[in-house]
């Protein structure tokens, strides 16, 4: 195994060397960094050309100049790597260190949401193969595949920022929208929970009415102007989460798991007001990690009261429930920050921005305010990235699950009388996750360099923007710096994916059979 990993690492270095060499030469021959100066009429243009030529070693032919650049990079082994300077005399490494977290923030959220949504919808479509919902989602997935991201982004800016902001400043849902949304939700739910025609119609009517009543209530009470879940919302949702998570994780008939999840729901309700008080104190950031740790500890110990045997799955259930309930409380807190955020001078009732990664005018200091600001700025670009990558996960998880469901061990599991939940969640779902896990790693790595267009449209100053500037200003050092990072991530993601595959699936042996 160690031999295999070290061999792969060796190959990785060779590949990076080769592709950076190709790219360096491609970039070097495709442009002239002195082009602008040659055309300039400034009196000292000639001196500038000479100076720049010396500085960038332009008198050395590109294949050799590559090795000058490489010498700087190889300094990494003796502790002082030199990525060179950009055209504006900044160290490349600093530029990258500023840009990377920004891109990561953008990409992480989009990837995680795409994975969760994509896999769950993919699984539902596979379980309801050839249903109306399946056909509809297949069409949606193909449509999303075919969307140019820059086109979607402009649409999002227009409809979800400009027009939605107008709605938010006067949050009343008009009658057409109410009816339209209700019908849409009716269609959605009746398509997922299919059955006989009568049942479908019942579900349609039920979902549409419920949605209509709920939205009108929100609209009349002007909930959108001052949103919050409140203790009642937290209570209702927590009980729902307790039942839902228990059903998926262990099955509702496992009373110990259900009771410990419900206890966590009760705890969430009880600590609601004390936590509100803590949040208002506003100061020590250290308090939040402590809260999270306490939450998980409590979630870990509560199940011990309810069962003496088979505690593992029960603890897992209660920890997952507790995590979601914690999220609910955080969401509630963010909702409560919404009103002051809207009313602050920096935002002034236009909350959803079309550009930028943070509102510079907002007074710093308030943790929740800044968090909300960051989230609101992430909203559109994340949505744009999400729409594009979501489709892939839907199709992939659907295909994989269908393949798994055809396997003999699924038939065996059904034949020995396991419940459908156990068959799907324990036998099928876990095996579906194996190839998906490997896809995730590669996808994540590739998207870091690939958010070029999204960043450009939404004005984020991340890796994509760096890359863009590098090409436009013929900045070889910057270009190679960005490439080295994205290339390294891409190659190592492949390695990690292979190792992960063999770790998850004992039938695959890493290192066996060629490369």
């Amino acid at each position: 195994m160690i031999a295999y990993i070290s061999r792969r690492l060796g190959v990785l270095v060779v590949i990076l060397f080769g592709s950076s060499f190709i790219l360096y030469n491609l970039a070097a021959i495709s442009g002239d960094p002195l082009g602008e100066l040659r055309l300039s009429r400034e009196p000292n243009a000639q001196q500038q050309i000479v100076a720049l030529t010396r500085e960038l070693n332009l008198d050395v032919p590109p294949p050799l100049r590559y090795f000058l650049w490489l010498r700087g990079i190889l300094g990494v082994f003796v502790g002082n790597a030199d990525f060179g300077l950009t055209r504006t005399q900044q160290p490349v490494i600093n530029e990258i260190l500023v840009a990377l977290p920004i891109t990561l923030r953008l990409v992480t959220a989009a990837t995680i949401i795409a994975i969760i949504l994509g896999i769950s919808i993919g699984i539902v479509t596979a379980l309801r193969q050839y249903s109306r919902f399946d056909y509809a989602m297949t069409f949606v997935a193909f449509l999303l595949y075919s969307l140019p991201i820059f086109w979607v982004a402009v649409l999002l800016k227009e409809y979800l920022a400009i027009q939605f902001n107008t709605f938010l400043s006067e949050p009343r849902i008009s009658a057409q929208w109410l009816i339209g949304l209700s019908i849409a939700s009716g269609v959605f739910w009746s398509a997922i929970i299919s059955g006989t025609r009568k049942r479908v119609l019942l579900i349609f009517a039920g979902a549409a009415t419920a949605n209509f009543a709920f939205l009108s209530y929100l609209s009349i009470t002007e909930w959108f102007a001052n949103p919050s879940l409140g203790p009642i919302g937290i209570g209702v949702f927590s009980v729902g989460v307790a039942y839902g998570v228990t059903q998926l994780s262990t099955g509702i008939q496992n009373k110990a798991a259900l009771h410990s999840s419900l206890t966590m729901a009760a705890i969430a309700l009880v600590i609601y007001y004390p936590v509100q008080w803590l949040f208002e104190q506003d100061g020590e950031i250290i308090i939040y990690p402590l809260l999270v740790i306490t939450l998980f500890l409590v979630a870990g110990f509560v199940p011990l009261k309810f069962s003496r045997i088979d505690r593992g799955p029960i603890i897992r259930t209660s920890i997952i429930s507790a995590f979601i309930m914690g999220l609910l409380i955080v969401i509630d807190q963010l909702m409560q920050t919404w009103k002051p955020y809207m009313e602050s001078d920096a935002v002034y009732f236009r909350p959803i921005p079309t550009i930028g990664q943070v509102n510079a005018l907002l007074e710093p200091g308030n943790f929740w305010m800044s968090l909300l600001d960051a989230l609101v700025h992430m909203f559109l670009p994340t949505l744009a990235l999400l729409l594009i990558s979501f489709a892939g996960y839907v199709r992939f998880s659907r295909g994989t699950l269908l393949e798994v469901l055809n396997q003999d061990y699924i038939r065996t599991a059904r034949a020995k009388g396991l419940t459908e939940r156990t068959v799907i969640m324990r036998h099928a779902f876990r095996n579906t996750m194996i190839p998906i896990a490997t896809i995730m790693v590669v996808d994540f790595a590739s998207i870091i360099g690939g958010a070029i267009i999204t960043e450009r449209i939404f004005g984020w100053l991340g890796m994509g923007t760096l890359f863009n500037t590098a090409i436009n200003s013929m900045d070889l050092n910057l270009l190679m710096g960005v490439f080295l990072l994205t290339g390294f991530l891409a190659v190592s993601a492949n390695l990690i994916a292979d190792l992960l595959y063999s770790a998850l699936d004992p039938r695959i042996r890493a290192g066996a059979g060629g490369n």
Partner: protein
Amino acid sequence: MLKKKKNQEVSVTSGEQAIMNKETEGLSQSQIVIRRFLRHKAAMTSVFVIFFIVVFVFTALDNKIGPVKIPGWWKFGYDEILELRLEGCPEGIVGCPTLDVLPPFIDGTGVGLGRHPFGQDSIGKDYFAMVMRGAQRSLYVMVVIGFLAGLIGITIGAISGYFRGWIDATLMRFTDFIITIPTIIIGSVVGYHFGNLGVGFLAFYLGLFAWTGLSRLVRGEFLKLRELEFVDAARVAGASDRRIIFKHILPNAIGVIIVSITLLMSGAILLETALSFLGFGVVAPDVSLGSLISEYQDSFTTRPWLFWWPGLLIITIALSINFIGDGLRDAFDPRQRRRLTKKDKENARVQARIAAANE
């Protein structure tokens, strides 16, 4: 009679499988594939859509093939600067579209194309002609990339999968090099300075780098197929390597290859438009669908038609190709089972009853 009995014993005689078997009885592999494809509604619709778009787009404008000039049916060229239409547009906007699809009893002006159905751009060029030209360029790039990448990908994949050993290792490491460099980076680097050499050069260059996924796929297929008995049989019979590759293995891998190339092409049209959007692809005065969107993205609020038409065209083309790919995948997949309709089952039942009555 005896033969028939034997057949029945071998094949499944009841349930869904029986209906499927009945349908494919006595057909060759390619007949089955074509039949399955023709039955795929979405794919067939897409074939017609694509065919229509190609004919429509390429006959719209004047085409020059060498000295011969074939006149198009549309009255304006994409680079003609015409008189801007000023009247009839909402407040202060010029060059709005004259296309009207609402019948007279709804809006009162009547259905018709008018002079500029898609409107005009800022200096008066006819936008319909520009969109047609853009679509021509985008389709052209798509086909060139698909062809070139397909050719290189199949060659490299076939050679490394068939010969294995050091040839395979070298070629696959070379593929890894290319994979590491994101296509969009290559496109940008190349397009930035060679963009003015024309769209053909761009397509050629992109095609040189877009084959990696395909070659891995083809290699996998070849590694699998070369171990099968029919290849051994061919080798024992004295077939040369070339003959085995072209006559025995390639036809068996063709399904995977065709599907993968369609997906490559739908990716290529998005890549070209993305590059043109970034300004690294097709450069003015030539236009592509991506450069049109890029140029007018800020005028969405005031003149949305400049934005909608090229976007819708890109989506239609990419969507159709994706659906064709999906249809082909289903058609080539031997394990593919379609959902039987009630009618299918009813027919099978009737036929079984007739057969029972005849015995």
